[in-house]
Structure formats: structure tokens, C-alpha cells
């Protein structure tokens, strides 16, 4: 089934795609039929610059297990960074 599950968060950062580096404004997080990954459904991260048109994007399609592993790894890295006092409070990010 098409789940139509998709949420969007504002982000700050840069990403490199087909057109080189782009400033990222949002990430769409979806769980639905992927385009390329060989799964019936995938966790899709679609980093975009909304002002730069639909092709200004970086996309990954992950299995749910891979997505959870990514989530854990990001958290571990941020905790390690916080331990070195090099990560401040989140700024400019929020779900919409």
C-alpha cells in the first residue's frame, strides 16, 4: 500500500548531490514505496532546498532496520561530541 506517511523538518546544513553542493532547508522523512531500493517500503530521507526546485535534493532509501541503526549511530556520535563539549543546543530546527 501507499502509506502516504511523510513528515518534514527544517534543517540547516549543506549537502552534495548531482548538481554539487546545495544549501539544505528541509528534510522530508517518509515511509512509503521507494523508487530504487529493493524493498516494498523504505524509510526515505529527502534533503531539499525548497527554493531551488525539485531537483535540488539528496535522497536515501533505507530499510527500517538500517534507518534505526542510523538513528542510533547519530545519537551515539552526538553524545560523544557533547562529552567533548563541542555540540551546542539545537538551533533553527523544528518539525512542521
Amino acid at each position, binding site marked *: 500500500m501507499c502509506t*502516504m506517511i511523510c513528515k518534514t523538518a527544517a534543517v540547516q546544513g549543506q549537502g552534495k548531490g548531482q548538481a554539487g553542493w546545495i544549501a539544505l532547508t528541509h528534510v*522530508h522523512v*517518509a515511509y512509503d*514505496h521507494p523508487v530504487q531500493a529493493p524493498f516494498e517500503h523504505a524509510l526515505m530521507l529527502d534533503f531539499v532546498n525548497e527554493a531551488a526546485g525539485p531537483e535540488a535534493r539528496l535522497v536515501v532509501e533505507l530499510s527500517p532496520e538500517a534507518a534505526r541503526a542510523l538513528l542510533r549511530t547519530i545519537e551515539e556520535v552526538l553524545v560523544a561530541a557533547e562529552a567533548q563539549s563541542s555540540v551546542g543546543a539545537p538551533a533553527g530546527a523544528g518539525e512542521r
Partner: protein
Amino acid sequence: MYTYEGMLAETLTMAGHNGDLIEAYLARPLGMIQVPGVVVIHHMPGWDEWSKEVTRKLAYHGYAAICPHLFSRWGPGRWDDLAAAARAAGGPPDAQVMGDIAAAAQLLRTQPWANGKVGVIGFCSGGRHAYIAACRVPGLDAAVDCWGGRVVVRPEELNERQPEAPIAMTKDMACPLLGIFGNEDTNPDPAQVDRIEEELRKYGKQYEFYRYDGAGHGFFAVDRPSYRPQQAVDGWQKVLAFFERYLRTGAAGSSR
């Protein structure tokens, strides 16, 4: 003596809902006249290679088929990028999709090689659109819903883009309906398919449903793990026989 087989397949620009210019993919057999038409409604992953394969498959079987790009308005851009933008926006409004389908049907109907009959076939979200088109797009001669989800919906699932439950439109269905479903699907699940059948029977609509064991959602899609060749081969036979009956041999649906 060999039999000639030829096909023209091409992208074109057509006027869709509200006269908006959108992309479409057309495939038709060459050397034939009195050709029936089929509008192919792509699924939520987009106007992809498989949707175009389906369009050519129908042309191979003697139909002029057109697959309008329902996400064109998010472009210009590559189909997969536009599909991502459409998904993030919650998909195209039903009214807009119906306008695009009506325009594509009219394009087919008015060609010099056409026999004037036009059906629709849709997959996944496109199956839902096919169900709605059977109720809302005037002049269709047949509709095929392949595992369309959200035909049965809870009121809280309705929104501005999808304001009405398709099942609530059933009384207005104006052409014969063929439904193809996998019994392992979760949307629509077998209970929802039962509910749709109940509604079709209640209003005396002409329909055929085929429900396959060992198959879930999207089991025609050769490029996905959901592909089930045995069930898909049988399902395609049912689809082609249905279109043959209502689009080529002149049988008229009694729902009209």
C-alpha cells in the same frame, strides 16, 4: 507470411485539468484503426519506468494507452524528483487528477485511429483514482482498480486534497469495474474489499473482483519484491479480457 507488429511510444504535452500543460506518455499500435483507448494511472512512486512498461504492454495488445504524468505541476524536473515533491505535499488533489484523466480520455477518444471507447486502469494510489474516475469522469467505458488503497477510509483520513471517500461515490459509478486484489494486502485488506463489494452490490453495479492468495500489494510490479508471476499472469489475462469485452467488442456496461 509474417504478421506485422509495430508500435509508436512517445512523450507528449497535453492540456490537463484546467488546461494546465502536463507531460504524458502515449503508446499505440501502428497499422491499426478503430483502436480502443486506455488511460493508465500511475502509482504514488511516480511516472516511472514500470508505468511506461504497462502503457506499452497495452499497446502491444492493441490499445492506444496514455499515462498522464500526474505530478507534472511540481516540475519541470525528473519524474523521481517530482514524485518526492508530490509525496511531501500530500499528493495531488483528487479533483485535479480527475481533470487530467478526463482530458487524457478525451485525447484518446478524438484521434483518427480511435474507436471512441476509453477505459482506465490504475495501480495502488492510481487504483483508487480509477475507482473515483469510474464514478466521476463522464463517458468512460470500463475501469480497472488494481489494489487501490483508501477506497474505504475513516472520516478523519479525509482532507482538502482527498475530501470524499471513494466508497461513498459508488452509487454514481457509471461503467463496469474490474478489481484485482492480493489477499495478503493490508490496504486494501480483504475486509475492505468485502466492504467495497457490498457497496457495489447494494447499488447494483456491474463489477468483477479477482482476489489472489499468495499475493499482497502491487504484485504486477516486475521491479519490486511484491511481484508474483503466477498471480500476475492470471491477473493480466483478466484485465485484457475485460478491456476486450467493453472496449473492443462493443459490449455495453449496464451501470450506465
